[in-house]
């Protein structure tokens, strides 16, 4: 698979720069504060803004369907991109950027789920949070359809083992090969194929229950 080359962020330095050394666009972003939700964001690092634009949909989607909670998924996606920005200097391009971001997302989401289970928190995603999951630009009919389909998918995924859920979400990404999924989930390609076969059957069985 052809790998895309990413430019390194221009804002990298060993020490925090003095105030007068902060580039104009970064100073502007800090000075202006939150921009209006309708306007595109002002990126302190345009290179990282491009990375966000390319991968945010898939990262948010993985977090959404893995955690099953739109609000938590938004928080998780935010934390993932912030971690990625902080660690971008460690990214050597040995894997695809998407794979690297997925690794951060999976670790972050697994930690969150572990913490939730330890605290015995009740997942109330089904009660009220799906209202925010659909895109605001969609027509009501379209939103209704997306919500219904999304709810069915989420319910079916929620009843699968965590590993099956993750494998199905990863293989659904056209950019991810079986080899990359195997590396990402730390198992052989044959194991991925076998588990995916069982995961598909389990998903179909659960999905049909909610018809």
């Amino acid at each position, binding site marked *: 698979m052809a790998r895309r080359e990413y430019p390194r962020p221009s804002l990298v330095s060993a020490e925090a720069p003095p105030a007068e050394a902060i580039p104009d666009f970064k100073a502007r972003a800090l000075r202006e504060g939150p921009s209006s939700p309708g306007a595109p964001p002002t990126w302190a690092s345009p290179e990282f803004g491009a990375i966000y634009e390319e991968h945010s949909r898939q990262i948010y989607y993985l977090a959404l369907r893995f955690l099953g909670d739109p609000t938590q998924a938004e928080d998780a996606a935010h934390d993932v991109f912030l971690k990625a920005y902080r660690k971008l200097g*460690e990214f050597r391009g040995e894997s695809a950027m998407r794979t690297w971001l997925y690794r951060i997302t999976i670790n972050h989401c697994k930690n969150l789920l572990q913490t939730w289970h330890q605290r015995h928190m009740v997942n109330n995603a089904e009660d009220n949070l799906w209202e925010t999951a659909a895109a605001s630009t969609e027509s009501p009919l379209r939103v209704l359809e997306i919500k219904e389909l999304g709810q069915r998918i989420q319910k079916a995924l929620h009843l699968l083992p965590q590993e099956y859920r993750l494998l199905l979400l990863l293989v659904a990404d056209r950019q991810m090969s079986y080899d990359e999924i195997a590396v990402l989930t730390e198992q052989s390609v044959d194991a991925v194929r076998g588990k995916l076969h069982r995961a598909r059957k389990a998903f179909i069985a659960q999905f049909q229950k909610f018809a």
Partner: protein
Amino acid sequence: MNPKTPKLQQQQKQETTEEIASRTAREFASPEELLRHDADQTSPPRALAHRVAESIAKEPGCTRSWWQRWFSRRTTNS
């Protein structure tokens, strides 16, 4: 009252029902295809981009990458 109105309403209602049925009756060959469709329809919240951009703007800067350290060492030595 226009006598055609109830008929027109009924026709419109039938069209809407058919439209919903045609949209929801779409079939997918595999779970992956279904999930791809779901992912294509699911946009990250618009506020997320702003949150990430604002958080990054507050970052003091990350450490230099290996290739930057390597290039600066070469420049110093030469």
